[in-house]
């Protein structure tokens, strides 16, 4: 069996500059794999970030997020 | 026969069809309703659009929609309805949309009555709605001009990307005269650089009157102002009737000018040197030509179906060089020729009333 590459696993990513820190993605995530950064972005929001594991690529965070470009979700 | 005997209101629709107007949006109101009746009959028959809107406001905003597609469109109403259209007119002027709006002026203020008046002059020529803008305003005085000036209004609207208004009155709208049916002059003005048509070539275009930044909105206003100055320089229309040697120059437009023709003829028959200067565009106003008459004329007389509106523009044009008198009737009362003749005699003899 070939070794898993990055593109074989689902993931979500947050563009921390576009995130307004509303936390709706956290509430939407069934796996609770999104968290809020302690850092501020340049618009003075605490952006969300992917904790790095167990994303299923369901896309619910994408639709819960009001920003067009803040969240990207990849599902193989 | 290339002619037809028709109401002024119907002649407007003939002019609109001949100018290639494709969409009419209106709301019933006396004495303008015949325009909607004719539009309802003719526009769909030519593949155009007719909608009886839920309100004057909606009708005007429908005009905004079609005008924003660069397609010739119009609405028509009478004074109280025209008041309601001010919102949409301001938006059209702000977004620089070409369209034609007809006002068959009736008696006011308020509900007033359905008889002829000219007391919407301020509303039409001074802006009417909010913001810095002007309407190109044409004042026909007979059925043929109702047709011809409507065609011209579409051309001017397209040329300057600005709403143009036909300012007529209840008499000019309701009376029938012989109209030479024009040949169609369907100008294909190129609005492809800005219009939003719902086709791939206009993706990314925006029709809007919003400009959030003060610096930008000032620029936009100055651009509009420059356009209005070009219109004032290039588009003034007027008619002179027995005016060059006149001691008394009567300034009158619309149906009043018709009464003045007759009164001037009578005055001339008596040896009184009276002439008529008729603004055909009430905006831009023929200020320069009126000012130019200060050399030959001894006095001016503005005659209007109002308590004195256009007379202010005559005074501004004359700049105090000659006396400017006013004679007005209102509420639907129309001066008779004899009445005007008596006023001419009185003014020319320096007498008092």
């Amino acid at each position: 069996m070939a070794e898993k590459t990055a593109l074989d696993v689902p993931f979500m990513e947050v563009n921390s500059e576009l995130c307004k820190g509303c936390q709706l993605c956290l509430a939407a995530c069934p796996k609770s794999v999104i968290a809020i950064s302690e850092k501020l972005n340049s618009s003075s929001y605490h952006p969300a970030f992917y904790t790095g594991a167990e994303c299923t690529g369901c896309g619910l965070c994408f639709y819960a997020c009001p920003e067009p470009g803040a969240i990207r979700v990849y599902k193989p | 026969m290339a002619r037809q005997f028709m109401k002024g209101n119907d002649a407007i629709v003939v002019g609109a069809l001949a100018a290639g107007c494709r969409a009419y949006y209106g709301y019933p109101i006396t004495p303008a309703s015949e325009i909607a009746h004719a539009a309802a009959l003719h526009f769909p028959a030519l593949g155009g659009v007719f909608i009886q809107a839920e309100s004057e406001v909606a009708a005007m905003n429908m005009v905004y929609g079609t005008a924003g597609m660069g397609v010739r469109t119009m609405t028509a109403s009478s004074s109280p309805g025209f008041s309601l259209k001010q919102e949409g007119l301001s938006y059209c002027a702000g977004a620089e949309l070409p369209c034609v709006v007809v006002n068959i002026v009736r008696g006011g203020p308020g509900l007033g009555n359905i008889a002829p008046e000219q007391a919407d002059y301020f509303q039409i020529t001074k802006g009417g709605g909010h913001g810095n803008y002007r309407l190109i305003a044409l004042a026909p005085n007979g059925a043929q001009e109702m047709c011809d000036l409507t065609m011209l209004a579409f051309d001017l609207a397209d040329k300057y990307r600005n709403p143009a208004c036909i300012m007529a009155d209840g008499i000019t709208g309701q009376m029938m005269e012989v109209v030479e049916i024009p040949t169609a002059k369907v100008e294909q003005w190129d609005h492809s650089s800005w219009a939003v048509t719902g086709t791939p070539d206009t993706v990314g275009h925006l029709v809007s009157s919003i400009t959030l930044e003060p610096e930008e909105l000032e620029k936009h206003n100055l651009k509009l102002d420059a356009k209005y100055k070009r219109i004032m320089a290039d588009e003034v229309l007027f008619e002179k009737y027995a005016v060059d040697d006149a001691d008394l120059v009567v300034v009158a437009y619309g149906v009043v000018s018709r009464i003045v023709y007759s009164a001037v003829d009578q005055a001339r028959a008596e040896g009184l040197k009276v002439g008529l200067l008729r603004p055909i565009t009430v905006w831009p106003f023929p200020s320069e030509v009126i000012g130019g008459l200060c050399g030959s004329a001894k006095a001016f007389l503005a005659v209007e179906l109002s308590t004195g509106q256009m007379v202010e523009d005559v005074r501004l044009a004359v700049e105090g060089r000659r006396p400017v008198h006013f004679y007005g009737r209102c509420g639907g009362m129309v001066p008779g020729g004899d009445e005007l003749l008596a006023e001419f005699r009185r003014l020319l003899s320096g007498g008092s009333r």
Partner: protein
Amino acid sequence: MKTYEKSAGFFPVFERKSGPAKDATHYCPGCGHGNVHKMIAEALNDLGLIDRSVFVSPVGCSVFGYYYFNCGNFQAAHGRAPAVATAVKRTNPQAIVISYQGDGDLAAIGTAETIHTANRGENICVFFVNNAIYGMTGGQMAPTTMIGQRSTTTPHGRIEALHGNPIRMAEMLATLPAPTYIERVAIGDSKHIMKARKAIRKALTIQAEGRGYSFVEIVSACPTGWKMDPVHSRDWLIEEMLKVFPLGVFKDESENRDENSWLRRCDAYDPAKVDEYLDRLKSTLGDAAPVALTNDLHCKFAGFGGQGILTLGLLLSQIGMRAGQHVSWFPAYGPEMRGGTANCSVNVCGGRIGTPLVDTPNLLVVMNQPSLDAFADQVIDGGTIIIDSTIVEGRLDSTRLRQVLIPATAIADEVGTAKVANVVVLGALVAATDCFPREFCEDTLRAAIKKRSLVDMNIDAFGRGYEFVKNAR
């Protein structure tokens, strides 16, 4: 493989937006507008509609909708987006037209446009974002504000007795026959959101297929206006708002409406056809060589409504037009005339006509007594009065005027109907004034009278009126 990312239905960069952040929206954190925008942009792109879409932005927080959608954009006046959308769709039925509105815009200042656009069944989509508050203007009460909800104009909460109740637009519009599809959805939890996404796609599909009007109400949060954090505002939306604004489909006729049945197809506008059409509006009286007019006529015709007074004026006008003369006809108009006394002014002149109003006629026709009383004094010295002596009992004792008495109504009865009394008078008028030759007038009448079966009777009436006056001389 699937990637969830910014849709190509959005502009790649929001260049129209002021300020530095040209990739982010102008909306507050947690605002539902962004979610709805994403769903619309995604659907337009996925369905292949974006290139022919026109997005009409309202007034309110979504006034800047045109920053975002990669299609044609309109910005409309407050409440008028459905009117603008109606016109765009009617002018180009192939366009995909969206009227995007908030609660103040749609359910207060634009209520009339909302209802009538729905009632006409315009083939457009209305997306109604209901967040129970005016956001842009500073948190005032909206038509959908909840009872008890505080706003800047209901500082003590909305009170039924003072402010009325929140309006349920979806339910109201569902009472109308024309709309095809009406559903209320919410930007609440993920289940709600995915249902909302489906509803938006369905509405756009219905429009693309020409099946008619869709209205999707989207209950949405306004954390700023509600003074709550985004997560709590979505909880409040679900717990409180959905009690007043229940979710569901209120109308769905999409299966019952054939494809393109609500796409208003008219014959394509063809500028080349305008002249042909205008030809049909020209007079059918037929060409005639100009006929001289003996002297200018300034006429007043007066009588009861129903006597054909206005028609009498029109017939003389048509004779004058066919003769190549200048003609004007002006009725005393309006509702005050209906059923009462009717009168009209007619000028037939060799030269340009001054005033169309005839205050001092040289020819007066009266077909009732009040008209004689009202107008006889206005006739100029040496003028003519023609009196229908069947009806008018009074006679003038003036020698100032020429008086022509004709029992027009009685003659008309002999012809067959009192309705042609006006044409008897016309015959009398032509005989009394010799304005135009009899044959020319009769030829014009034949062309002017539309009903063929009535031509002979009218020619008979005209001839009798003419003969009566000529023989009386």
